[in-house]
């Protein structure tokens, strides 16, 4: 076999080796940021955020709530749009394809304004939080639809033929073959999408949903310490996405089945 000189596959570094290299990465990054802050003569004082801890906590919880809510709703929308694109009723097929095209082809910010101020107002949806979750779900649903569709298409025809040859019904085929196989193949992409939902939820601040970013804007208007506020809020978002990534890696291992070609 050809040796891959630049890939670590098969190489098992010692614990000391790992820790020392993590230390180098941290040192370089912290050093770079510290130097940059020092060069512009900025003095950071995160202590000033302490008095806003309750509001930050509320915003943090709201971001989690909106993200989890949007994840559930967007999975549902995504599944329907993915299946709808393959559905034999042409109207539904075109509808789902158009939805995915338009949503993926326009910025989230535009969609938030459009859906909230035009569609939402027209149909009397006044609750910002519900509107926020719905809008975010519509946006992420289009991406999730494509992830699910890719997952379904990655299953080769023979798997269905095996299911037929074993006398399984359509439902049994879905439950025991299609669903577990698709799930195992799309988990990494879905986790990435969930991280996006968490970050994208910050844009809902433009319709005054009091989540983490909006809270930070309000605090900034009060203490004028933009740098501390935004660095800290960035750290909070990172905590959330890091948790998602860690969890997804665990699941990925659990559901990983090597495929023989």
């Amino acid at each position: 076999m050809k040796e891959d000189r630049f890939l670590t596959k098969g190489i098992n570094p010692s614990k000391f080796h790992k820790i020392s290299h993590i230390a180098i990465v941290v040192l370089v990054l912290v050093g770079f940021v510290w130097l940059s802050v020092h060069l512009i003569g900025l003095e950071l004082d995160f202590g000033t955020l302490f008095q806003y801890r309750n509001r930050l906590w509320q915003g943090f919880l709201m971001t989690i709530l909106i993200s989890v809510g949007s994840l559930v709703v967007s999975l549902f929308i995504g599944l329907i749009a993915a299946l709808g694109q393959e559905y034999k009723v042409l109207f539904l097929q075109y509808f789902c394809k158009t939805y995915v095209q338009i949503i993926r082809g326009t910025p989230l910010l535009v969609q938030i304004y459009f859906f909230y101020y035009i569609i939402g107002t027209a149909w009397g949806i006044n609750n910002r939080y519900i509107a926020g979750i719905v809008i975010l779900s519509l946006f992420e649903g289009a991406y999730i639809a494509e992830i699910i569709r890719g997952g379904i298409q990655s299953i080769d025809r023979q798997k269905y033929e095996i299911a037929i040859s074993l006398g399984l019904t359509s439902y049994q085929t879905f439950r025991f073959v299609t669903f577990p196989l698709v799930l195992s193949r799309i988990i990494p992409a879905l986790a990435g999408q969930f991280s996006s939902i968490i970050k994208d939820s910050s844009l809902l601040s433009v319709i005054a949903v009091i989540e983490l970013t909006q809270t930070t804007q309000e605090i900034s208007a009060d203490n004028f310490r933009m740098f501390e506020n935004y660095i800290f809020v960035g750290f909070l978002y990172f905590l959330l996405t890091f948790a998602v990534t860690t969890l997804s890696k665990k699941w990925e291992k659990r559901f990983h089945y090597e495929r023989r070609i």
Partner: protein
Amino acid sequence: MNVEFKAISKYFQDQTALENVNFHDDVSSLAIIGPSGGGKSTLLRIMGGLISPSHGELLVDGRQLRFDRKSLQAYHKKVGFVFQSNGLFEHMTALENVTLPLVQSLGMDRKEAVHIADSLFERFGLHDQRSKHPYQMSGGQQQRVSIARAVSVKPVLLLLDEPTSALDPEYTADVLDMLRELQKEGLKTMIVTHEMGFAKHACEKLLFLSHHTVVEYGYSNDVFKNPKTHELQSFLDLVLEWKV
């Protein structure tokens, strides 16, 4: 099992796979041989109810087979199918692969299904593979688990689509030995194969398919000894050229 192909043709878009195939006989062990692209796999897949013919009828024990999912479900309990390769579900262990049709198609209780699977594993030297996923097994082991799964439901007829063509020679012998044993027990088989030795010695009859239709049919020994057509003669010359 009495099988009758009545003027069966199969087209894929503008490509012909089978053209007016006629065949009628009691099948006990039948080998289907012929050049690549001649329609062997297509014939077997129609027989297995995996694809439907474009024209013609398939009669099994005198009754016409209907190619809708409901009718086929009952049919698949009588007719098993073994694929060329990758015939197992990658997300299930060997045990789960074998018990799946027992529990889901036959409605057997799980304990009984596990018992049946274990006795098959024991018998065919597969007990070490019981809890392994397909990627942890060799190709030959995978293929033998596939066969174990197919026979676990006690089918009347087992169809095999080139079950050894993706295997190393030593695994090929393992798989063919297993098949031979099952045949001796009375399992009826229809096999598409390139193993001429197996076709000649382990299969009662032989069907030579070329250019999308049946060219020769008869007892294996006779057909191998006295090929009637130039086509079969040259095919045999070609495949046997390097045999020891």
